């Protein structure tokens, strides 16, 4: 193997070896030294305008912007020298000239980089004695609100719209301290990926109207997850408070979504908080449904399924683990598993390769396919009269609701009662995606983990847990004590997933064995 060329330098006394062309800021990051910055973002072209990341480089005549200065062999960099700290202090003082100290009412409070760095190394007081500038907030359209008073003109938003979204709606208007982020005449920030500017804004200048005044940063719990808005599988962070999902934000993964997520995915969280959940297992009796213990419900479900061909109508948003266990039930009975994928318009993010809001508006269509499920626009056509039907977290159309009457028995495994399903013999309530652990397989065959972000309501249980118990009730060996165990069984029996484990997947995911087959045209 050829040697990878490296550049050796010293940052804050630590020896660092990085690839040629790396910036000092990134090199410092790799050495565990955070150089404060505002305008720099690894997903955007370098602007070098905030001047916050100035560092002292030995033999350089002036302080150097670390975001725009490439490393050189033997360089000695001082991030926390007096000269560099004084320069940063000066920048912070100037940024606060017109920035209002309205942290108590600012949505960015608690995760504001201006607040953090000022606390860390800013001046105790301000020498600014003149009246502050005031400008009204501006509705940018879409989900974005612009509060000019707080803007530090880092231009991340402008660069995102220009260079990543390729929709140059935003600009810097005016000059001097009168400058502000403006919109082109007659245009609004309605690009399908526009809300990323809110995440990119290091201060509280660009805010989500949806999240406005809903919660404070320090009240939120954050959990790594995967977006279910489409088959792209963007890595996300689920932010919850009081067992309620408050917002979804992108989590960086250079192999999938870099640093971004689309507005459709971002807004696709309200169903995770729905209140009409199935909370307890129940059985249909002469007097309607009655709540029963899990054992009774599972025995009941096994009883109605045994000896029959089982047809599973599965949601393509179910985890690989749930689909695997359902597939085992299907195989055991000689039945069929099928799924339908909702469709929507494709919305690419032009500046990032292979990133788009996909037409397939489901997170695990690929997993369902790999696990033997049949994709169909009208999946119930595959059901034969007399089949026992399992509806696994899937709504039905009005026509399908009528068609299921052909089923000899109906078992619902779901988070809520499926739309248009009027009858169910057994109801087994499960957790939704933010209430359990598991994995999803995206359109490129990348298997990615999601973690539990909030508690399951009532007696509902994780899907893999319920389905493993159902398999056991049907006489199969399926003793799993964690989602990882269910996945291990899946990986052991399904060749496509061979060699994978929760540990190996980590929080970035790994491709299935033959992922190359998914590298073609996007769906």
């Amino acid at each position, binding site marked *: 193997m050829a040697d990878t060329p490296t550049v050796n330098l010293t940052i804050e006394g630590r020896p660092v070896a990085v690839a040629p062309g790396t910036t000092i800021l990134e090199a410092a990051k790799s050495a565990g030294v955070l150089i404060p910055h505002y305008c720099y973002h690894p997903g955007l072209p370098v602007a070098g*305008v905030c001047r916050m990341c100035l560092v002292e480089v030995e033999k350089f005549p002036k302080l150097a912007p670390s975001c725009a200065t490439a490393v050189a062999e033997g360089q000695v960099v001082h991030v926390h020298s007096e000269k560099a700290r004084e320069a940063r202090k000066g*920048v912070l003082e100037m940024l606060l000239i017109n920035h209002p100290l309205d942290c108590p009412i600012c949505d960015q409070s608690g995760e504001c980089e201006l607040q953090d760095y000022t606390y860390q190394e800013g001046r105790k007081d301000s020498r600014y004695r*003149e009246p502050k500038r005031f400008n009204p907030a501006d509705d940018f359209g879409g989900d974005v609100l612009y509060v000019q008073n707080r803007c530090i*003109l880092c231009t991340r938003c402008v660069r995102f719209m220009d260079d990543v979204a390729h929709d140059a709606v935003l*600009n810097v208007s005016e*000059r001097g*301290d009168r400058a502000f982020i403006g919109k082109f005449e007659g245009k609004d920030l309605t690009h399908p990926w526009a809300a990323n500017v809110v995440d990119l804004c290091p201060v509280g200048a660009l805010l989500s109207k949806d999240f406005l005044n809903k919660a404070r940063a320090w009240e939120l719990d954050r959990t790594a997850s995967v977006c279910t808005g489409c088959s792209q599988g963007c890595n996300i962070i689920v932010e919850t408070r009081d067992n309620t999902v408050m917002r979804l934000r992108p989590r960086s993964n250079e192999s999938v979504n870099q640093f971004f997520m689309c507005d459709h995915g971002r807004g696709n969280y309200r169903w995770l908080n729905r209140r009409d959940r199935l909370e307890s297992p129940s059985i249909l009796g002469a007097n309607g449904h009655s709540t029963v213990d899990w054992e009774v419900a599972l025995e009941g479900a096994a009883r109605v399924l045994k000896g029959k061909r089982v047809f599973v109508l599965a949601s393509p948003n179910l985890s690989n683990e749930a689909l695997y266990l359902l597939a085992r039930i299907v195989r055991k009975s000689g039945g069929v598993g099928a799924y339908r994928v909702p469709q929507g318009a494709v919305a690419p993010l032009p500046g990032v390769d292979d990133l788009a809001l996909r037409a397939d508006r489901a997170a695990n269509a690929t997993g369902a396919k790999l696990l033997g499920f049949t994709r169909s626009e009208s999946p119930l056509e595959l059901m034969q009269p007399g089949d026992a039907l399992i509806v696994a977290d899937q709504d039905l159309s009005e026509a399908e609701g009528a068609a299921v009457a052909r089923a000899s028995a109906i078992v619902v495994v779901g988070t809520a009662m499926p739309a248009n399903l009027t009858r169910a013999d057994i109801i087994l309530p499960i957790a939704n995606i933010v209430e359990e652990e598991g994995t999803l397989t995206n359109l490129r065959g990348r298997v990615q983990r999601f973690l539990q972000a909030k508690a399951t309501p009532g007696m509902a249980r994780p899907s893999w847990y319920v389905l493993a118990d159902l398999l056991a009730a049907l006489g199969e060996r399926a003793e799993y004590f964690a989602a990882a165990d269910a996945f291990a069984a899946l990986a052991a029996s399904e060749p496509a997933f061979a060699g994978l484990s929760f540990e190996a997947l980590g929080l970035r995911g790994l491709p299935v064995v033959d992922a190359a087959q998914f590298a073609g045209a996007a769906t």
Partner: protein
Amino acid sequence: MGYPHQPHPRETLVLSKHFGEGDARSLDGWKKRGGYKALETALGMDPVAIQNVVKESGLRGRGGAGFPTGLKWSFMKIGDGKPHYLCCNADESEPGTFKDREIMRWTPHALIEGVAIGAHAIGAENAYIYIRGEFTEPIAVMEAALVEARNAGVVGKNAMGSGKTVNVWVHRGAGAYICGEETALMNSIEGRRGNPRIKPPFPAVAGLFGKPTTINNVETLTAVPHILNHGADWYKKMSRPDNPKSTGTKLWSVCGNIQRPGNYEVEMGFPFGEFLNDVCGGAPQGRTIKAVIPGGCSVPIITREEAERAVMDYEGMMAVGTMLGSAGCIVIDSAQSMPRQIARLARFYAHESCAQCTQCREGTAWTTKILERIVAGDGTAEDLDTLLEIGENMTGKTICVLSDSCATPVSSGLAKFRHEFEALIKTKTVHAVPAVVA
């Protein structure tokens, strides 16, 4: 249209020799005066040979930075297979500087000739003359001259029958001072907001449209034909015998409280005292010169005493703690309030800051507000130290030097005329505006 003043006998007229001669603007008139001979010679020369002649002459950039022109041209790799560009910086927007305007008004073909030679010397087939948008008359004159030159085959394809292509275009700026900064100028030509770019990459590597580019000032390029016509030695001789680093003649724009404001061309090394008091006639009657900003308003302010012992070249100005810059000389007399003059300069920079860098965007405005408060009789003793500290934060920390340009007159003004600021703060008086001098 006449020229506002007669040349002084102590001037050395090279670039300004034909100022005021209306027919020098036409192609025929220019050719009658020996025009385009240098271009004809240059087009028959190897580009590197032209670079060497210019290097030998010691010509340095007249836009303010003073970088050796021949050396700058030699950074362009001839024959690298890439398109090269030449940009002539005619965005003369610094208060106090108005020499390029006169070159374009009176001798447009001199500039076209210089641009064409420069383009050939760096292997460029296309050259842009970026003119400040407010220069309506020079733009009209330049465009008319370009039409003549194109129609006569002086520029364009097969320029002067040489087989070489030299296209020259006029690009009109939209009125932003920052577009005179070379990288902002390129952004502006490309149709983008006129913001300076981070260097590296330097324009010689990735400039206009991402291709190797050289940017030269109007005066620099206009000097080139003379150097080719008369030789590098002739140009070099116009210097102090003990200082070969500053050669040739320099146009000085003189304005402010001076008897005879205008453009003057003198050899490098001319005594500044004699220049101010004799050539330009000194301060208005009954007053004395108090301060001089010799190089466009971004250089350190010097006192009359410092000015009178200085000599007029790059090193001579540095010797008294200032810079030659663009040689836009602003004279301030004893009746003026330094705080008021400095506040006015700061306001200009605050207005023109491109708003990219924090220190410049906020610092220029903050500086201006404090200065205006002091001038309005509402200053405090702490303000002066604050001004200096803000200035320190604004210096050497931004992409371009606009921020430094604002801080420099403030800090040098405070260093030399602090007593005026202190008096204003102490008495809390608003300094009266002096009467206009007839």
